[in-house]
């Protein structure tokens, strides 16, 4: 090769690389209408390729929807809500037309104007009036305008290992219903030895505060109360103190929680799957995760109501629609979301698909999510669920039976900031034998009020 030919090649290659870079940076035109006149709808919520079974279900659902709605072209994207990439996608205009959110997200996304106001389109959405109003409220602003559709709803209960209960001489069909009973059961299970601990608590990355919130609700307490326009911390009460003293006694007096306390909720799921943990506070969606990822079994996992039973934290998921979406896209998006998630008409087919695929049926999750108000819709879904269950639903019966009597409450405002402060309370109790609970609560209260004053 001569030198000049070589140089030409270098120049060509450089040009090509630059051109590619620029092409990659420019976003493609996304008007929503495709050439064949179909409405193009970019959605996320596609399960990762590593979860082959869920992915197959998802793809079959998209295909079935497109068959039934030939005017809509669904373009699926992998992933759910990842805070690290979400803002980048918004900033670059790459956010999908329909995007997944947790119940924690809508309040700030509405405030920042990232989601479309869909209130005027909702009259045509079938069955939406059968969804629990408090779930729709998660997606509404102060004026009652709605910006998203709830698709699943979880409340927290007490997840426990039935085998360990039996070995420790406890009745696996009657899980503890008060925090004192949790303490007794935890001590009994820890007696088994071999590294088994009775009770576990998530404590890091704001999960400590998140779970403490649920536990404060369980005593009938509140994390924050509203007075006029302003919010105030409301958790510094004798009930919360008693709750934490009970936790302190489990950790230090009975020594039934083990030594490692800087654990995430995932660490607890791993321990639960491995049969090393007796109980922890969790929502029902933890059950299939433990079975699928951490070698637990449906037979061995039981779910009871949250101890205390005066209230519990509800969480859940749903979808919002991009603020940039055209009216046609909003209509198409609502058609998709209703068909896919708010649709008792398809429940039976979905149950059969899952049964054929050996996927769990019988839990309060898709295909039988717990989102319906009392009435014929709920009754029919529940009847289908019970008739077709392939997991032992009696194991979650204590939770389901108590659920109607336990009021579900949503998260406090500025939830993540508040959880970060409450994390400290939980960590203080769990890592410092001489922790002063009163002082920890005072400090957290000051911090939370500071956050609310700045709102």
């Amino acid at each position, binding site marked *: 090769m001569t030198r000049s030919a070589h140089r030409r090649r*270098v120049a060509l290659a450089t040009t090509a690389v630059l051109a590619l870079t620029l092409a990659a940076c420019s976003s493609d035109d996304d008007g929503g209408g495709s050439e064949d006149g179909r409405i193009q709808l970019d959605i996320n919520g596609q399960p990762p390729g590593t979860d082959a079974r869920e992915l197959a279900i998802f793809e079959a659902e998209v295909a079935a929807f497109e068959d039934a709605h030939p005017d809509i072209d669904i373009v699926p994207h992998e992933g759910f809500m990842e805070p690290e990439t979400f803002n980048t996608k918004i900033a670059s205009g790459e956010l999908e037309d329909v995007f997944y959110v947790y119940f924690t997200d809508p309040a700030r996304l509405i405030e920042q104007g990232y989601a479309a106001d869909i209130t005027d389109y909702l009259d045509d959405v079938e069955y939406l009036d059968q969804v629990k109003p408090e779930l729709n409220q998660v997606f509404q602003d102060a004026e009652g305008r709605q910006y998203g559709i709830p698709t699943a709803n979880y409340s927290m209960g007490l997840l426990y290992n039935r085998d360990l209960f039996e070995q420790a001489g406890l009745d696996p069909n009657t899980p503890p219903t008060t925090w004192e009973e949790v303490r007794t059961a935890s001590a009994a299970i820890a007696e088994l030895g071999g590294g088994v601990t009775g009770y576990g608590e998530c404590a890091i990355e704001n999960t400590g505060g998140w779970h403490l919130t649920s536990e404060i609700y369980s005593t009938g307490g509140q994390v924050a109360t509203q007075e006029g326009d302003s919010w105030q911390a409301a958790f510094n009460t004798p009930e919360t103190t008693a709750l934490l003293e009970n936790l302190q006694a489990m950790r230090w007096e009975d020594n039934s929680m083990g030594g490692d306390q800087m654990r995430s909720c995932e660490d607890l799921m791993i321990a639960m799957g491995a049969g090393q943990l007796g109980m922890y506070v969790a929502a029902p969606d933890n059950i299939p995760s433990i079975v699928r990822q951490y070698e637990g079994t449906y037979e061995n996992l039981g779910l009871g109501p949250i101890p205390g039973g005066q209230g519990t934290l509800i969480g859940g998921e749903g979808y919002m629609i991009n603020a940039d979406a055209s009216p046609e896209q909003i209509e198409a998006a609502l058609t998709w979301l209703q068909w896919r998630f708010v649709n008792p008409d398809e429940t039976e087919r979905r149950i059969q698909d899952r049964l054929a695929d050996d996927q769990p049926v019988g839990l309060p999750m898709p295909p039988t999510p717990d989102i319906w108000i009392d009435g014929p819709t709920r009754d029919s879904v529940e009847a289908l669920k019970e008739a077709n269950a392939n997991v032992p639903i009696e194991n979650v019966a204590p939770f389901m039976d108590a659920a109607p009597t336990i009021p579900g409450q949503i998260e406090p405002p500025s939830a993540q900031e508040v959880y970060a402060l409450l994390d400290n309370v939980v960590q203080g109790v769990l890592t410092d034998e001489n922790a002063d609970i009163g002082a920890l609560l005072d400090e957290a209260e000051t911090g939370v009020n500071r956050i609310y004053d700045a709102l």
Partner: protein
Amino acid sequence: MAAPTSRRRVTDKVPARRRRSVEKVPAERRRLRDKLPGGRREGGQLPAARWRLLKQDLTAYGFLCAALVVFAFFAWWPAIRNVVLSFQEVNFVRGSSWVGLENFQYIFDDPLFATAWRNSALFSLYALVLGFGVPFVTAVLINEFRHVRAYFRVLVYLPVMLPPVVVALMWRWFYQPDGGLINEVLGTVGLPTSEWINSPDTSLIALVIVSTWANMGSATLIYLAALQTIPGELYESAELDGAGIFKRLWHVTIPQTRFVILMLLLMQVIATMQVFTEPFVMTGGGPQDSTVTVMLLVYRYAFQYNNFGAASAMSLLLLLVLAVFSAAYLRVTRSRQI
């Protein structure tokens, strides 16, 4: 061991800056330049010769441009954006608005502000005390093993090749208070065990140990390279003068590697002030905020509280602090040189 004498003579007489320029300019170009009227650096060259020179440099400029574009896109532009963002309330749909110093007010008002800076500074300090000497001593030791040096080099460098998150997760297991590797070993040999990351008193130190273990490989390799440039005669004459091993270390090794030591110290402070992976993966900032660092707060502001303005303001502050520190450090150490 001894360096060739001719090279040593050059090294001794030509000042560092000039030496480099003499060596780097290719012979062909030097000849060309010398032929030009008006001496080496003045203008007014013959157009044809100038054009040839330019043409010869085109490829170099081309490559330089590519590097500049990459730097501009991925380093300078984001840095400038960061400065802009720190004075804005960031909204990616409605557009951001200027808010003056509000973001700085917000971070100053955060009760964790002081905690985070103190923890980061302590982390850097502990990392200096615990970790700074270790790679140097390791390098000196490895340098003594002539035949298995390569083997030790790989061994010491291995942790650097492990993904940082894997290292952090692995050490979480080592640190388990009951049944963890470290407490088991300590207990077996009769030493006191510790709660490690489970206690606010020891958590920061525990993270420093992980970070030192994971990062010392690079510094060790750099020291090893520096040690090998020390002329053997220096040790010989020191030995003849009756210097023992510590005297030789003090009077020969350390002065000869002084520049590398000072540079690595600066780089280590800059790196450890930005510690993030270890607290993020291992403790989430706990227990009781004992491992909340500046970068961890930046992460929380941006991705948990969705406040990109505050995150940028904090980053800018860290940049300024480190820039001022580096400038002061370089000034002090330079004036002491010679």
